[in-house]
Each structure stands twice: as C-alpha cells, then as structure tokens.
C-alpha cells in the first residue's frame, strides 16, 4: 500500500484559500466524509484533537506542513486528503504547542486502525523530508500533476 492508493482524488484541494487551520481541517474532513471515508464525527474530532495535540511540523524548506488526524473510531476506511494552500495558515508545533508554525501543505489522515498503513505514513514522512517533492506538489494545479509528482518521488 502506498500513498497514491490512499490519496482520495476528490479530497485533494490545490491552491486552496483557507481562513485558518480550522477551515482547512474542516474542508478536507468534509471532503473525506462526502467520499464515504469518515463518519460525521470526524471533523469535530479532528478539530478537537488538533487543539489539544497539534500537528504542525516545521520543515527544512520554505514550506511547512501539518498532518491532522484523529482516533480510529471516526474513520470508516483508510484514506488521505491533501491541501496545498494559496497562503500559509497557522498551526501549532507538534513538539512545542506554544509555538506557531505557518503551514502551506496539509495532509489529513483517516486511519481505521492504529499502527496500520505504515507504508503510506512512511511515504508521507519521505515527502516531508524532500523539499524538491514539496516544491513540485505546491505548484501542481490538478490531480494528475499531483499523481505525477508522487509517482516520481517514489522512484
């Protein structure tokens, strides 16, 4: 299983203009709900978790990322939503929650069992560690372009 197997095309928002982190979590969560991946409790649970246990990750390049997710009971089947943002929004740093991180790349993970989908998670970590892939993702304007970047990134 890899990232493209789990990335839900209808849950990919490119150059999305978000008011704040709640906006982007809500937007992606609703798309996952509409596509049948998560329960109607998912968005509220993800927002609640993000407020208690934030997921902002400062990266080595210009773009920082956030990986909002929540407990498995809000998920029906595993899937991944992604947004690139037209301008950064503030998430709090996972490791030091008092610190603000301006994030422009957001992956919302819907995982239906703990410790599963390891390959997908490792691929996300691989992307986060590769500024060139992030840069290509940020300039992608349609799903085909995203797909091409992720296929290339794996080679």
């Amino acid at each position, binding site marked *: 299983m890899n990232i493209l197997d789990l990335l839900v095309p209808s849950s990919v928002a490119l150059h999305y203009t978000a008011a704040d982190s709640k906006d982007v979590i809500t937007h992606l969560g609703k798309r996952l709900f509409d596509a049948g991946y998560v329960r109607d409790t998912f968005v509220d649970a993800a927002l609640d978790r993000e407020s208690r*246990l934030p997921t902002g*990750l400062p990266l080595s390049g210009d773009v920082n990322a956030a990986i909002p*997710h929540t407990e498995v009971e809000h998920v029906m089947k595993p899937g991944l939503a992604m947004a690139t943002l037209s301008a950064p929004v503030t998430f709090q740093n*996972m*490791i030091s929650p008092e610190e603000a991180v301006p994030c422009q790349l957001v992956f919302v993970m819907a995982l239906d069992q703990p410790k599963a989908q390891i390959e997908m998670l*490792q691929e996300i970590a691989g992307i*986060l560690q590769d500024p060139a892939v992030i840069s290509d993702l940020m300039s992608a304007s349609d799903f085909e372009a995203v797909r091409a970047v992720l296929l290339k990134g794996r080679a």
Partner: protein
Amino acid sequence: MTAMRKTILVACGTAVATSTVVAKSIEEILRDRGIDVVTRQCKASEVANMTSGVDLIVTTTPLQGNLGVPVIQTLAFLTGMGKEAVIEQIIQALKV
C-alpha cells in the same frame, strides 16, 4: 543476546500514525547499525503506565512529569531535520 535487547517506547498524540512512523524508522536505522531494539507505541497520556521494562522513551509530543526513564523529544523522524544527531543521542541513551 536477546537479553541485551533494548526496548524503546515511542509516544505521540493518539498512537495511530505518528508514533508508527517514528518507531519503524528507529527500528530500521538502528538495525542497519547492528543494534537490535524492540519498540512499543503509546499515547502521550499513557506513558506513565507504560514505562516498565523500557530503556528509553522517544516522543513527538510534550510529556509531563519525571518518568524515571530517559526521554528524547524529537520530530526528526518525521521532518528529517537533525536526524543524525538524534540517532547518536538514542545510541548514547541506550548505552549500546
């Protein structure tokens, strides 16, 4: 000797995703260096009850209180930044 095998407890917010990546990454990197470790995963809120038999705690999220076990707090296995330094820190802490 399996008796010498060290155990690392990996903690994150929900023990669903983040600690999975970190645990796998630590296992693979240390194995490549000939160090055999076992990892366990838990939520940050569960750490205090999970420290029995644990040699080191690696966490991606802040932990409360004195746990009686060395703690390394790092995002390096997610973001790649400072990974080498953290691996050295882990090896030091395990005294292997």
